[in-house]
């Protein structure tokens, strides 16, 4: 247990980095993913096409490759992110947005057609139908899949270790190299740190799911 106190600063800052990476990119993904989902069900064909292209590209590319292009690829376009952390947030946010979009879209599909028909009969336009009638209901049904996307995101932050962000997995690599004789303990501590984020999330999702569920 000696090494935990020796490395408490590193572990704590790595934990905070992982957490803030997950939270910030989660917000980016939630906003962007919802917009994309709205685009995918919109009346305008090019918007649908654009959103589909985005989703299919990011869903089918490994996250590491997305990271590579946002960190090194865009340099070839003479662009740069202000810091590696923002690049990591952008990579995770863009990648996860594709999954958020699919989850929200399935939620929109799950809203009974009668709801949208009633909204249209009342004279609401597409934007109003979506934002005031369909999406509020959709979000309730997509709590579990969105929750899963969030948990996956929290774990996917580990890819940032290879791109100059010192989060938990980078700390794992550092500590395994300097504590070769206590590898199991190092692992246990890092796994525990991830569980501290993911397990309460899983529990919270279950509670929210029960609170907001629509009984049909």
């Amino acid at each position, binding site marked *: 247990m000696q090494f935990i106190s020796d490395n408490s600063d590193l572990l704590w800052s790595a934990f905070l980095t992982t957490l803030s990476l997950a939270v910030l990119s989660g917000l980016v993904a939630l906003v962007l993913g919802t917009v994309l989902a709205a685009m995918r069900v919109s009346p305008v064909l090019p918007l649908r096409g654009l959103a589909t292209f985005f989703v299919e590209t990011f869903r089918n590319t490994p996250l590491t490759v997305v990271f590579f292009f946002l960190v090194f690829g865009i340099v070839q376009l003479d662009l740069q992110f202000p810091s590696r952390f923002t690049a990591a947030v952008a990579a995770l946010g863009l990648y996860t947005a594709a999954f958020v979009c699919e989850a929200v879209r399935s939620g929109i599909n799950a809203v009974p057609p009668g709801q949208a028909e009633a909204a249209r009969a009342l004279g609401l336009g597409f934007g109003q139908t979506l934002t005031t009638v369909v999406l509020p209901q959709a979000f309730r049904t997509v709590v579990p899949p969105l929750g899963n996307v969030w948990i996956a995101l929290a774990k996917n932050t580990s890819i940032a270790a290879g791109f100059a962000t010192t989060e938990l997995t980078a700390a794992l690599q550092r500590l395994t190299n300097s504590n070769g*004789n206590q590898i199991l303990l190092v692992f246990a501590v890092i796994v525990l740190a991830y569980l501290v984020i993911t397990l309460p999330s899983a529990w919270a999702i279950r509670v929210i799911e029960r609170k907001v569920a629509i009984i049909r």
Partner: protein
Amino acid sequence: MRLTSRPARYAAAFAAFGVVLTGCSSEAGNQASEQEADSSASVNTEASFEAGTTMAELNEAGTITIGTKYDQPGFGLLNPDGTPEGFDVEIAKIVAGELGIAPEDITWTETVSANREPFIQNGQVDLVVATYTINDTRKQSVDFAGPYYVAGQDIMVAAGNPEGIEGPDDLAGKTVCSVEGSTPAQNIRDNYPQANLVTYDVYSKCADDLTNGNVQAVTTDNVILTGLVAGNPDGFELVGNPFTEEPYGIGLALGDTEFRDFVNDVLEDSFEDGRWAEAWDRTAGAITGEDAPEPPTVDRY
């Protein structure tokens, strides 16, 4: 090159299509065809060992599992054909040859920093030759033969050295890049805390970041940096002021003194009969153009 497997043939057909498409061959391809003659570490077919020793077991089995790194320029890099190459690999071939094992009978396993000690302790590898710095913490879990090379941590900067970095003390306030989990990175963290250290998982990314101007320096063992400079001589230069000593050893199971002595003997022989220098010339030396240095002295601690 003979393409035996079906995927290789498909790949070749696809490649032919691509070459037609792009209308020219690549620099890398031309260079690869030039470097056909390759290493042929001698195999000591008459090797015999006292029964019960690790050497006898390996000699009898006719095969050995060796761990090395696949991302250390000049020491261990994965060749496109799937075999590792580099100075570490050549050293391992010399040791295997003395055990009566031909290079093609060696099972290569990639060892990363996280699994070197556990691999030796669990017996998943017989030897680890992987730019493995000998230190006291590691000596508690594994035994080291060697050193077979003493590297020194150095600094690589953009050509012309615009920041005027002459040594580690000049790194204060500068952004410097290294690989996470490596000894040089830890050294910067411990001894030069004023430097702003960023870490990637491989050196090529550090080199890219130096090109992009995101970092002002890259630091790791000098041989690796020399290789990176060789890759981009117009863009990088080496400061050439090593400030640590990194003795690279061959890791093996703790307490197997006979095996350790044997490996040490092999290393000493290779230092004397020129096989060591030859291995250097063929690998790290071929890229950097530098002559083989003086071999180090084996440390039978």
